[in-house]
């Protein structure tokens, strides 16, 4: 069996303290996610260099919802029949950026509220061995 690997390269680490990988502008300090930008998005900065950097592992919920119906392809369901999952947009500090992700399995909208603290975890994205980032409520 092949080893579990990220569904997409370079967006997050999978060690015991996993983190999303963003980019940071060495000149003005602006962050960016996903880590695909090759120039600074700040219009007042002309930097053409962005440096990979791990982002905060914890943040607070900006908002949240769930998917009660199976999304269309290219989404791949983890189970058949489809089981609903929750989604959260999470605000990270000091990056001051909001990043979307699924909520960790076993948690739903009842476990969330705007402002709730969540932590990044890595879980299988679907029935395959591929991994993705998710947000897990800290239970505050």
């Amino acid at each position, binding site marked *: 069996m092949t080893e579990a690997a990220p569904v997409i390269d370079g967006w997050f680490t999978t060690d015991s303290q996993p983190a999303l990988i963003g980019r940071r502008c060495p000149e003005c300090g602006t962050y960016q996610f996903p880590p695909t930008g090759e120039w600074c*998005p700040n219009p007042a900065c002309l930097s053409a260099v962005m440096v990979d950097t791990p982002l905060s592992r914890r943040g607070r919920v900006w908002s949240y919802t*769930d998917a*009660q119906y199976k*999304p269309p392809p290219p989404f791949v369901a983890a189970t058949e029949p489809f089981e609903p999952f929750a989604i959260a947009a999470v605000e990270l500090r000091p990056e001051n950026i909001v990043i979307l992700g699924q909520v960790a399995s076993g948690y739903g909208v009842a476990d969330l509220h705007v402002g709730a603290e969540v932590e990044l975890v890595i879980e299988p994205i679907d029935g395959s061995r591929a991994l993705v980032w998710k947000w897990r409520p800290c239970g505050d």
Partner: protein
Amino acid sequence: MTEPVAVIGVGMHPWGKWGRNFVGYGLTAARAALDDAGVAWSDIDFVVGGETVRNGYGGYVAGSTMARALGWNGARVATCYAACASGSAAIEAARTRILAGLCDLALVVGADTTPKGFLAPNAGERWDDPDWLRFRLIGATNPAFFGMYARRRMDLYGADPADFAMVKVKNARHGLHNPNARYRGEVTAEEVAASPVVCDPLRLLDICATSDGAAAVVLSSIDTARRLGRGDVRIRAVSTVTPRFPNTALDLPDIATDSAASVAAPDQGFRPSIASAAYEEAGVGPDDLSLAEVYDLSTALELDWYEDIGLCAPGEAEKLLHAGDTTLGGRIPVNPSGGLACFGEAVPAQAIAQVCEVTWQLRGQAGARQVEGAQVGLTINQGLFGHGSCVILSR
């Protein structure tokens, strides 16, 4: 203030799930608009189409597709894509060409045939396409974003799903007698509450469908309109602004916002800035509006728009709704057409349809849904990837 242009003709093909080619719908709408304007197709010297991305190459070149369908007449041509804002981008292309004196009579057409179910990204493995990635990595559909916006109203302002249902009840009633609407029937709050949850807290009847449909307008300079005896309705402003960095509200289809680590977020967020730019260009304000057509992709999103166009302060939209201010007969009716709740979305046609409705309202031709004495109307909308869309019209 910018010089106005005239809307001399409007026309639509009824919204529905007809399953036919989008070109036929566009042709119906275009001919209706030309008839309404009393001008011949051969006199149109600029034709611009709102692009549809789900109908093959003909959709990518919608302007010339429509010109060919009407019969080549040698007009200049353009096609605009700005996602849900494509229609207003097309209107803006026509308006600016008229104001530059480069064209006399312009035809703007948007038409679409939509698939059943969720709008999905284009097929294939598209690992560099954020619209594809949000489905592949997260399963974040459009309604998931609407659900998150709705949830913020609940957690920040104390809104209740019953408030959202009330928007649906209102819009269903507005659209009852609109011959172009797809859904023409009363909906009760109980029916909304009994419909299945799609993306918490939103239920099926809180979320707009996707539809087939087409809308068209004929625009001209004020002088030309006077010569034709059709100078009654004027476009006073078109706002197609982008966000200002950093845009800190999560917008479709992005996985992340801009970072506000080095530059503070602007005082005004993207959505309110769309309306502000239009108000400034038109030299009017929210108090001058007789009606508004706002993009109610969800019931809760209509409430966001009340605040974003300045009808009330943030968090006050539910009060405005409950007071009946935004119902026909109220202070500032919103979506007298029935809105997307009654139409469903036909992407490149929708912003043009909004302008058709305001035009009929300003002419006093809206029948049972007429806003009495309408003088000024606003349409607003937002397209994926940072496209503002706001048109202000007046008599």
